[in-house]
């Protein structure tokens, strides 16, 4: 019997060992952090936003700024003007992924009383949501970004989201104007855009506001709303951004750490051209327009936007006999504006875009400033940044000459349609990094029109288009939404990217 008792004792000892405190308490992740400070998230989020190119590339194709060279097949969706539900879904997935980071920053900053940081997160949420709305129309907004708490977010009306943008930007401005304190610590190194300069963020927010408001320009019912909010911007007093809004985390010459444009369209860390280099050419529409407007060899086109060799051709999207890359006019070549160095800054918005937005608001009567003066500043900003790199100092005087040369396509005083002039110069100034905005401007104003016929009988819209001259007005919801949020996605009834236009479209 003793032995029986001993063996039972041994078993219970073993049991006690197994149940000793902490034996099972080993599930703390030793590999990845499970909590983070908002300042550690902000740089990733900003770098992601500024380095996103898929929506810009799409805009550049449709707006005739870029075209696939004859050295690559594919790009069928672009060439046929027929984007399906699996087309560039990274615009949707990438932006929501990015938004989740800003949302985290916003919420954590609110918890810890970091008002400035919270304001920055709000501005960047609007910046990203606006790309989503301008691409897809109605999208999940109020119920979005809540994980499995709301596993099937409903879609908000695009117009309601737009109205909330103004509310969010106003809140952001109020937060950013609060004084710095031991609690409201301004982000410094983690703010890879403005280094924690709250005033610049407020100016950027004001510029974002006018960008949002001008989308309503076609809607006369919104005129009073636009005026009230423009008046609010003026009353706020900080004004608009007058410099390029740029992001740079401190790019390094190492794979994965290069400037995203550089790494996607140009070279890898070893300095070798990436495969995709040969996929792209300058659009024939853009090249023809610029060659016609600006004396060959001067100003921004040759040497700035694209290579100086005059014999190289621009390509039309879908051109059936598109020249091979070597014979194309290129934008991704050493020293051009878009390819200056592996650590060049990434754009969120250019100073030129800010001036052209203001010029449009003034021309439409919402701003009391002189529209021509703002237009001239926009052109000057574009000349200064896009001029043939190499320390040329005559950009400002060349710009001054250009805007007073008496030509309809550059001199404000002589332009028959001021809005067309402003939007077209904005289109030129935003070559590449502003191409998505150009697609929005085209859908809103009809300017500039890459589907218009040229005098020589050339066409600049895709000859492979199965929808004639109709550039897509939106994208379909991505197929992943049909799979994971089908009831809400299908309820929107979006099946035609040409006829189902966005609420602000012309």
């Amino acid at each position, binding site marked *: 019997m003793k032995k029986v008792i001993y063996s039972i004792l041994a*078993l219970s000892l073993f049991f006690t060992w197994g149940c000793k405190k902490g034996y*099972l308490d080993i599930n703390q992740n030793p590999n990845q952090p499970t909590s983070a400070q908002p300042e550690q998230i902000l740089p*990733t989020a900003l770098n992601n936003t500024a380095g996103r190119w898929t929506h810009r590339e799409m805009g550049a194709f449709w707006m005739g700024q870029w075209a696939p060279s004859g050295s690559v097949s594919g790009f069928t969706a672009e060439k046929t003007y027929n984007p399906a539900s699996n087309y560039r879904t990274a615009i949707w*997935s990438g932006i*929501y992924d990015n938004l989740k980071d800003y949302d985290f920053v916003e919420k954590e900053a609110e918890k810890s009383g970091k008002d400035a940081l919270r304001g920055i997160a709000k501005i960047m949420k609007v910046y990203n949501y606006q790309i989503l709305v301008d691409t897809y129309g109605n999208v999940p907004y109020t119920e979005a970004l809540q994980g499995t708490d709301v596993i099937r977010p409903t879609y908000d009306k695009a117009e309601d989201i737009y109205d909330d943008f103004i509310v969010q930007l106003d809140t952001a401005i109020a937060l950013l104007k609060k004084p710095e304190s031991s609690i409201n610590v301004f982000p410094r190194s983690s703010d890879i855009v403005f280094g924690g300069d709250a005033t610049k963020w407020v100016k950027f927010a004001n510029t974002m506001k006018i960008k949002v408001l001008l989308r309503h320009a076609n809607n006369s019912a919104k005129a009073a709303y636009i005026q009230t909010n423009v008046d609010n911007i003026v009353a706020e007093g900080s004004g608009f951004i007058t410099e390029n809004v740029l992001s740079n985390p401190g790019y390094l010459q190492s794979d994965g750490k290069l400037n995203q444009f550089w790494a996607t369209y140009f070279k890898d860390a*070893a300095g070798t051209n990436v495969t995709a280099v040969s996929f792209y050419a300058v659009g024939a529409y853009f090249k023809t327009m610029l060659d016609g407007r600006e004396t060959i060899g001067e100003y921004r086109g040759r040497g700035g936007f694209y290579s100086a060799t005059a014999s190289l051709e621009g390509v039309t999207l879908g051109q059936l006999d598109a020249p091979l890359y070597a014979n194309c006019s290129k934008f991704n070549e050493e020293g051009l504006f878009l390819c200056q160095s592996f650590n060049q800054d990434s754009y969120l918005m250019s100073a030129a875009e800010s001036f052209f937005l203001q010029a449009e608001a003034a021309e439409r009567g919402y701003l009391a400033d002189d529209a021509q003066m703002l237009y001239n500043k926009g052109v000057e900003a574009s000349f200064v940044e896009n001029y043939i790199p190499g320390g040329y100092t005559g950009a400002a005087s060349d710009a001054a000459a250009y805007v007073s040369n008496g030509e309809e396509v550059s001199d404000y005083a002589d332009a028959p349609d001021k809005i067309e002039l402003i939007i077209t110069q904005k289109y030129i100034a935003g070559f590449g990094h502003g191409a998505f905005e150009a697609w929005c401007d085209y859908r809103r104003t009809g300017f500039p029109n890459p589907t218009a016929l040229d005098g020589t009988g050339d066409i600049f819209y895709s000859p492979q288009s199965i929808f004639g001259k109709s550039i897509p007005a939106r994208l379909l919801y991505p197929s992943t*939404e049909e799979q994971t949020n089908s009831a809400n996605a299908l309820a929107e009834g979006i099946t035609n990217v040409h006829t189902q236009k966005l609420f602000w479209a012309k």
Partner: protein
Amino acid sequence: MDRDQSFYWLVINSAANIPLNSYRNWKPLKNADGSLNYANPNNYYNDYYNNPWFYLDNNRLDRTDDFLTANAELNYKVAPWLNATYRIATTNQSTFSKAYSDKFDYSSWATDSVGRSVAKDYAGYVRDVSSNSTRISQDLFLTAKKKWTNFSVLGIVGMNLFDNSTKYSSVAATGLVIPGLFNVNNRIGEAVVDEENTKTRRVGVFGDVTIGFKDYLFLHASGRNDWDSRLAKENNSFFYPSVDLSFVLSDAIGALKDNKTLTYAKLTAAATKVGNVNLGAYNLETVFNGGAGFPYGDLAGFSVGNTQYDPKLKPEFTTSYEFGIELGFLERLNLELAYYTQKTTDQTVNIAISNSTGFTGAVINTGQVDNSGFEATLRGTVLKTENFRWDVSMNYAYRDNKVASLYQGLDEIALSNVDADGTIAAIAGEQYPALKVSSYKRDPQGRVIVDPVTGYPIEATGFTNVGQTNPKHLVGIQTSFSYKGFSLSALAEYRAGNVIYHATGHNLVFTGVAEVTAMYNRERFVFPNSVTEVTDTNGNVIDYQPNTNIAVQDGGLGFWDDHFDGVGENFVTSGAFWKLREVNLTYTLPESFLEKSKIFKGASVSFIGRNLLMLLPKANKYTDPELSTTTGNAQGANNIFNTPPTRMYGFNVTLNF
């Protein structure tokens, strides 16, 4: 994984008239006679895809695994009826691997050639991994055995400790300096480093009792409680019992005892619950990953992880009820029949969720899947003489299942998005797992609607459920003959009742090697059995008109690549197959022959052939339906990364000393 890194992909991108085997020796730029060596990447004919041999030689993985296993068992007879046992088993696995590819610089002639997009220098790559895992399992239990005249009791009570730890670290370089030196120190750019450690533990306490009555009635019951470190404290303890009864009729009932025809009869019934934690370590909290490109020098950056984890995850349970009968006839024939129903709840799965939630996936406990089915096995000896024997065994299983409910009342859960045109999903009320694919838009009669201008078929919005991917019917036939020292056995299997998504088909169509793409000689054609929509003045569809004359705009790339390739239903076939899985011929040397040698006690030699024959339905022109992109739940799809099925021949020599 990039498909350009698949050997198979490079092979199918070589035109059919290219004698690939003559491109084996790619290293020299020129042949011995001074002519250009066209196998060399600089001279290879294809502008877009490399010589597959070059790829094969230049992407290598060397790997060494060391295993150390040890077991020890201590038994102690406490009393004549009571035994104590302690067991410890440990397995240690150390793995070292080095994946590498050499740098290769193309000649400037190749890189400057217009349109030669393949001519991109290889920067070289090396990744050195070392990992180690240790599992230790310990059991301590008491076994009590007692027999009375009519009754016997066997009782076990004990405990199990299970401990698993892993360590993984890797260093990699994405650009090399000196060719052929595969060491991370020989790099340009920053090294890519990674480290991961895991530790999990489980404690189990169990009891098990079997009561027998007169050797023909047995009642068995067990219970076990586990505590698992992978779950939160509130959920980490779970209990699961089982009970079963077996009754040997042929021994119990007097009338059956000496029956010459029915020689054996047994009835069984069982109710079982099994609990399981199907989760890795640290899967309860959402993590922050290093942001893309970060750190940049001293600037750190993180990003909220894309998978949302639920801290309240629970173990999954399967409860099943089974009834069975086993009958033996004439000492020659044996029949087993079984029926079961099964309910699985709280399966832990990684599901895809809408990007607009801020995440791409979530690990959750999903609802309930009900299974039921029956199995029948018939075994018999057909012929038996002194020297010759022929045995046959046949079994058939029918499996049915249904998703009873899903997480948060979802209609469906995507288990795996195979590609842009196909998804494996769990759909409420449907069989599991279900295959959903993109499809053509059809009129009510099922005819495909084409665009009246282009003649191209129109794609329907949303995906269509085309059926389940697990086979419903499983048949197995095994037979063996033996004659003196020779024995010949064969195993054949049939499975059916499921569909398969051949994602590989997209690649075959894209490259133009798919047979279907040549159906119309790459000429324009009218899409068969198609219609166009007839609309009223308001643009509403009022009727459909058969399409007899609108040919597709382009019968080449335009149709096959742009309008056929992107429609998932074109790549769905029945998953049925007959397979001759194995044939085995063995000769055993007679003992009399071996006796003389005094060394060997037994010797045999076998010839084995595996996967010898596969019969597929005509529609399945692609591949073995058992190939899969995953070992997980989302069965039913293959892709370009699957190695094509292989036939295997071998032989075995067995010597006993």
